[in-house]
């Protein structure tokens, strides 16, 4: 599903933030991506959700070599990936439900269908009473839940989350992780970047660890779906 072969990445003309990364995420796997701040977790996710091109190496997503795929093909691949951004990236002039429904709108789906799904998802993440609110009126934690709802509304085949629990309390963090596990059970491959050791320790999922731009850890192991604490 996701394969990196000798992948490196740099910003502009700077030094490489990722060096010779090799790993594979199999269909239906669930991984944590750990590492200290600045280790390159966000950069690695950017390569997967095609926000950045590698400086070298080969990236294969859904059996497609993305370094040579045509532009339109890349857009279609992006639609199969859900992303929870660290900074939420909500559009402030749209309402909460419109933000969540945006991936469906981009795909050209029927409004009634996606509005129904969006409302359900918002209720599930505890925001059922603020579907018409502006994101500007929400707290950091609420924004994060809106961002998560938006990332999962289209039932993505891969879900990437960059510090998805950074702005929520432990209870909600655990609840969100359960949501990700539920999606994983439905077949979504999940990769969560976090430096929250406590959270990772509570769930028995394999870890990929980034340090000094290099990756280590067990790759491709199927998910266990168990909370250990």
């Amino acid at each position, binding site marked *: 599903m996701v394969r990196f072969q000798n992948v490196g990445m740099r910003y502009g003309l700077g030094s490489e933030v990722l060096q010779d990364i090799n790993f594979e995420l199999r269909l239906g796997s669930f991984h944590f991506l750990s590492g200290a701040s600045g280790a390159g977790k966000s950069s690695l996710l950017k390569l997967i959700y*095609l926000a950045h091109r590698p400086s070298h190496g080969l990236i294969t997503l859904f059996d497609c070599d993305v370094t040579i795929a045509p532009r339109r093909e890349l*857009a279609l691949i*992006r639609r199969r990936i859900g992303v929870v951004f660290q900074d939420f990236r909500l559009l402030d002039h749209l309402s909460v439900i419109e933000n969540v429904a945006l991936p469906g709108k*981009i795909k050209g789906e029927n409004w009634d269908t996606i509005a129904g799904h969006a409302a359900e998802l918002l209720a599930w993440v505890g925001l059922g009473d603020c579907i018409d609110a502006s994101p500007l009126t929400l707290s950091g934690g609420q924004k994060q839940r809106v961002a998560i709802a938006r990332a999962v509304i289209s039932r993505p085949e891969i879900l990437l989350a960059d510090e998805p629990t950074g702005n929520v309390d432990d209870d909600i963090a655990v609840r969100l992780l359960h949501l990700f596990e539920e999606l994983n059970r439905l077949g979504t491959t999940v990769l969560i970047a976090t430096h929250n050791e406590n959270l990772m320790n509570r769930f028995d999922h394999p870890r990929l660890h980034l340090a000094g731009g290099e990756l280590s850890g067990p790759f491709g192991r199927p998910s266990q779906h168990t909370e250990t604490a």
Partner: protein
Amino acid sequence: MFFGRCDLALDADPARRLLPWLVAMIVYLAGLSLAGMMSLASAVERWDTGLKGTVTVQVPPGAFRASGGAMEKLLPLLRKTQGVVAARALSKAETAALLEPWLGEEALGADLPLPRLIDVKVRTDPGPDLKALATALSAVVPGTIVDDHRKSLDRLITFARSVELVAIAIVILVALAAVATMAFITRTGLAIHRDGIELLHLMGAFDGYVARQFQGQALGLGLKGGAIGTALTVVTVAALSHMAGAVGAGLLPRLDLGLTQWLVLAAVPLGVTAIAMITTHVTVLRALKRLP
């Protein structure tokens, strides 16, 4: 409704709020240039048609006095000439009326020596040999001039064509200004909404989807500005036409436009809007190509 609403908050852009007024100015300038060009072209055509098939025989005042009964000698000769359809001597009053717009009533009131004119209608194909006619007439009444108006009309046509070229140049410059303005405003919008555009891109939006957001804005604002500019053009043309009419029919070309010409003016805002949309589309697509 969300599906009709723009994903990007383009309405809030300061530069975009100015767009209708910029389009209005562009449409106004292009409209006025075209209206002027078309009126002048019509005037030249009217002059050309009006003077085709006419020749004026001019008998200077001195020659008229020296040869008694000049008209009686010239008119029969003219009427006998092959290619001449009719010849009519203009009275002194008619001649004065022709000169009144240039000289004024007071100057003509004095004992001003005026040439005597004969209005001659001629066939155009084949017409009379004007050179031979002039020689024959001069032989009868020395100093008589035959004027087929061609020289002055040719000068007028050359002048009109030059003005037309200037008007076309103005229209082209205005179109280029529209392209530059739209490209600038679109680039500003792209910079302001970079994060939102990147988000749509990362969600799998095709480049055309993002371009359509900007294009839709350009269409709405372009038509709004176009309507304002067209209204201003119509008012100005109507006012100038009225003023030209008040000055006098002989001095200025009429500014009244025909149906086709009004349709051309009505097409100006649509053309400017189309330019705005195409420029926006191309600018957005070129900018998006830089995204991975």
